[in-house]
């Protein structure tokens, strides 16, 4: 009895070590991809790297829940009561991101001044619109403004 307990404990320790290494490696790969994107122009490659980072993120989430949170070792019925509701996220993410991008297109098409205002370089903006609140803010006062620039 005591022997099986130590054997279990050793197997558990090995699993912890393995998952720790996997998580660290995945994080390092993510960071390497992040560094590779610095200064890169908007392009297909950049979007591809972002996609790869998201997949690595999901892999990390899987390892944390399945092994650290031990969900992989629970009964299948119980796993399903947690994982199936999370499937809502598939709809949630697709619907809302599509909504955001549709809103951008509508605004750019039907509100040309918005499009101009939000795409021209900051210093050439003659009249700050309501979207440039921090420009309107006076230098003094506004205690939460953090007006001291430079550190």
């Amino acid at each position, binding site marked *: 009895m005591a022997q099986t*307990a130590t054997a279990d*404990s050793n197997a*558990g*320790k090995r699993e*912890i070590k393995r998952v720790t290494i996997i*998580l*660290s490696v995945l*994080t390092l790969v993510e*960071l390497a*991809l*992040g*560094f590779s*994107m*610095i200064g890169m122009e908007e392009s297909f490659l950049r979007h591809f790297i*972002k996609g790869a*980072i*998201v997949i690595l*993120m999901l892999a*990390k*989430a899987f390892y*944390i*829940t399945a092994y*650290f*949170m031990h*969900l992989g070792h*629970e*009964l299948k*019925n*119980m796993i399903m*009561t*947690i994982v199936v*509701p999370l499937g*809502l*996220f598939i709809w*949630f*993410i697709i619907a*809302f*991101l599509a909504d*955001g*991008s549709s809103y*951008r297109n509508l*605004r*750019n098409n039907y509100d040309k001044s918005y*499009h101009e205002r*939000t*795409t021209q*370089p*900051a210093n050439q903006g003659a009249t700050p619109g309501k*979207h*440039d*609140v*921090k*420009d309107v803010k006076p230098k003094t006062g506004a205690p*939460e*403004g*953090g007006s*001291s*620039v*430079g*550190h």
Partner: protein
Amino acid sequence: MSTTVAKGTKWWSGGHSPFNVEYGKLMMWYFLMSDAFTFGAFLISYGTIRFSANSWPDPNEVYQSFPFLGNGLPLLFVSLMTFILIISSVTMVLAVHAGHRGDKRGVVINLIWTILGGLAFLGCQAWEWTHLYHEGAWWGSNPFPNADGSTGHHDFTNFFFTITGFHGFHVFSGVIINIVMLIMTLNGVFERRGHYLMIEKAGLYWHFVDLVWVFVFTCFYLI
């Protein structure tokens, strides 16, 4: 509390907990699931606003400072924070593991490491917030221009401070929970009870905090 059960057990005909887990642990799972939706709603609204904006600040221009090393170091500080949280998650697993064996000393040592990791993470976050505040960033004020040079919108800072703040609040409560667990362990409460299942539940919460950081880290700092 062993999870090995004879094959062919009729789970739903009475005499067993159908999911073979303790009530408190199951409820912790459902709480975490609801919390996942809260964080998910925050992050998805961030995504919606970002998709609706013509341009967005470049994280590598915004988060590029490290204490004592100065500026121009993108991703470095947040990597440190990420590794602190991963390591504290590992020590938490080790504490849960020691609890399974009834090894009080192991639980105490690993809980202390976990608490220290949590405090280190909170310290990092406090430094980063202070630094950004001194650069002029706060709720309602965004000094950082967009990647294409246009004026940045304060949606950017609002989401950053709200979401990392909400996550930081979870880390803070996790540290408090772990301190309570440490005190209870030292007082021998779990020894008298005969099991360390409470540590397991606290562990679930702590791992969830790490899990959320994986998403926050990716959404704000990487992409």
